[in-house]
């Protein structure tokens, strides 16, 4: 990616904003035994061949991203009626989308069967589609897991403490089928899964994790795009992060691939990296049940925007691997947008792209100069957004700032 760093600006080659159609994966760090390769589910590095007709449009992805954000906001203490409405969107089996875009492959059961899962820090339960698909399974690329063929598979009793406490991770009280615990979970895009709470061996790269509790889905409907299920990395005790605390210390890290045509990684356990800057997880109760951060300020082109601290504390901030576009409180977004527009005043504007309303026509330029944007978190942690993370481009004549504003200061 051709960029030059010039003080408080990035110089970006316009052509580099459009993703490549050829996979060029990095293999750095993938030899570790608890590290999984991360790819974009619609990109050329995905382990599944893509049917071009099923790749979602930009508008589709942004619409579903908004549905996910509405769902997240509805679960937080400042939920509102609009957000609640959004989670009732009907899921369409066999459809595409769902804004959690990144996938990993794990081994399930004994002998292990490789399954491709969406990974998601915004939910807790790990689940897969299971035979015999008592009610419904959507089409998936990998063979659907058959628990009767795994020698280590066990159902979890509905009288167990674990069953009785899964509502904190699924949002729904458990049920009972015979003596087996039944879970149910619904996502922001209307997708849902219902099935048996079970445990089995899960293999991450070469690490075997025994008796990991997960959902064996027997009624799965929605927008999972051929994936075998979902890996929940949320903070609840139900998540795989909490279940593997004794082995990995509740530490994991990931790099999302810098374009859809390359690979990143997801690693469980401590990993030394000198350059990591830490900020505390937020104690703001408004960010539960997600990973909350304390955003304190925003810099554009080296200058701090004039934003009252209360703008950030009113709503709180969360980080979620499954949300595509960062949202800011309205006042913060207005300030950012104004500063950004001022710095790019020499470039022609372009129409909005769905929720993204700060767009430019770069089609007549070979390269452009854009201001650097940094977020400041508690502990004086400055995170500069890399140039590739600043824009979404449908084509070079419609390149949009990849940040949107919330509709309410309390969202």
């Amino acid at each position: 990616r051709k960029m030059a760093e010039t003080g408080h600006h990035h110089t970006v080659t316009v052509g580099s904003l459009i993703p490549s159609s050829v996979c060029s994966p990095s293999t750095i760090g993938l030899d570790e035994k608890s590290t999984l390769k991360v790819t974009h589910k619609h990109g050329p590095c995905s382990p599944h061949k893509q049917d071009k007709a099923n790749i979602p449009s930009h508008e589709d992805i942004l619409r579903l991203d908004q549905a996910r954000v509405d769902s997240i906001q509805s679960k937080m203490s400042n939920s509102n009626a609009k957000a609640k409405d959004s989670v009732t969107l009907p899921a369409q089996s066999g459809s595409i989308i769902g804004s959690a875009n990144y996938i990993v492959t794990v081994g399930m059961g004994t002998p292990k069967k490789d399954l491709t899962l969406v990974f998601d820090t915004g939910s807790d339960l790990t689940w897969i589609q299971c035979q015999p698909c008592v009610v419904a399974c959507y089409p998936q690329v990998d063979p659907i897991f058959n628990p009767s063929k795994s020698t280590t598979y066990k159902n979890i009793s509905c009288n167990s403490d674990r069953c009785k406490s899964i509502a904190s991770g699924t949002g729904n009280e458990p049920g009972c089928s015979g003596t087996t615990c039944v879970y149910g979970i619904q996502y922001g895009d209307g997708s849902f899964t219902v099935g048996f709470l079970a445990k089995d061996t899960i293999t991450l790269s070469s690490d075997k994790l025994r008796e990991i509790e997960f959902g064996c889905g027997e009624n799965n409907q929605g927008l999972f795009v051929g994936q075998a299920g979902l890996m929940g990395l949320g903070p609840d005790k139900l998540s795989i992060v909490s279940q593997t605390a004794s082995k990995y210390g509740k530490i994991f890290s990931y790099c999302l691939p810098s374009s859809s045509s390359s690979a990143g990684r997801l690693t469980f356990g401590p990993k030394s990296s000198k350059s990591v800057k830490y900020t505390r997880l937020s104690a703001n109760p408004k960010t539960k049940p997600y990973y909350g951060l304390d955003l304190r300020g925003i810099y554009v082109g080296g200058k701090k925007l004039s934003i009252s601290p209360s703008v950030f504390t009113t709503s709180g901030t969360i980080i979620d691997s499954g949300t595509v576009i960062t949202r800011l409180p309205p006042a913060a977004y207005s300030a950012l947008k104004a500063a950004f527009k001022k710095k790019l005043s020499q470039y022609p504007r372009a129409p909005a792209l769905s929720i993204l309303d700060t767009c430019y026509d770069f089609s007549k330029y070979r390269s452009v100069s854009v201001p650097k944007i940094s977020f400041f978190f508690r502990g004086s942690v400055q995170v500069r957004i890399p140039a590739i993370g600043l824009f979404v481009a449908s084509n070079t004549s419609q390149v949009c700032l990849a940040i949107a504003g919330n509709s309410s200061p309390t969202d």
Partner: protein
Amino acid sequence: LGIYGNTQQLTLQLVYDVAGGKVGFASGGCN
């Protein structure tokens, strides 16, 4: 055809130390 990623997180390494109650960011941590 362009494909979106989770745009703000691209090229950053994200480290979740849940037991330690902190989240880390590393520029170039995946290079």
